[in-house]
């Protein structure tokens, strides 16, 4: 019980469980602990919202690299092609 009580006020542990819940899964006990904590903690409730948003933004950031159209320079490609050619000619 004292364990549960300290959890109710422990934002460090709560944010840990929030992250774990978002990317994995919680045990039954962890779920209860977190729910109780969030009922009484506005700051961590805001943290949940922000953390989810950050995950979405990261996904977007990763998924849209074509926005800044990255390609290799022709010179580098040329040099690479020559290296490959040399390797192929060895055999």
């Amino acid at each position, binding site marked *: 019980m004292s364990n549960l009580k300290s959890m109710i*006020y422990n934002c460090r542990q709560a944010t*840990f469980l929030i*992250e*774990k819940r978002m990317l994995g899964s919680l045990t039954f006990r962890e779920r209860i602990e977190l729910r109780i904590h969030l009922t009484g903690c506005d700051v961590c409730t805001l943290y949940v919202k922000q953390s989810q948003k*950050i995950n979405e933004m*990261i996904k977007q950031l990763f998924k849209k690299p074509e926005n800044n159209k990255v*390609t*290799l320079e022709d010179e580098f490609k040329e040099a*690479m092609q020559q290296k490959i050619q040399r390797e192929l000619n060895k055999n």
Partner: protein
Amino acid sequence: MTESAPDTRQLDPHNWVKHYADYLYLYTITRIKDEEQARDLVQETFLSALEGMERFAGKSSERTWLTAILKNKIIDTYRKRSSGLKIVDVNEPESTAPDFFEADNGHWKKEYAPVSFSMGSEEGLYNKEFNQILQKCMQKLPALWMAVFTMKHLDDATTNNICDELKITASNFWVIIHRAKLNLRACLQKNWI
């Protein structure tokens, strides 16, 4: 006669650069934010592929095969970058990063407690500027954290997989995810408001 289409089940190294160099480079640069290193990895991929040509079984497309070789090289790079950071003691308080919580009771420290990002509306988050700040904040993360983050969010890799490939334990994985997010969020709060 079939022109060497990119989905051919045979290897055609003469056309690798033409067909795949840009694709592989893009794949790399989204995972390794270092142009020089990304270029080198693409080149190494082609050279390794040449050496391993007899191991190509024709079961996947040429592009898939090359990407698999590249992926291994990227993970090697993550490992190298993060060597020395590998051991994260779960019980040890953050030593390099600031601790966002009171030591005795785990409450948010006042100066680090989350405050609403933009005028009370989270809508403002969808914003180019915010994206740039996010990118900068991510670059500040330690290499191992960044690797874990990238693999989880970009490749949707399973936790087990990530732990295996980066040689970390499951509990370390969650500690890293937690710390990375706390630091990222704090960095955003500091630079956005």
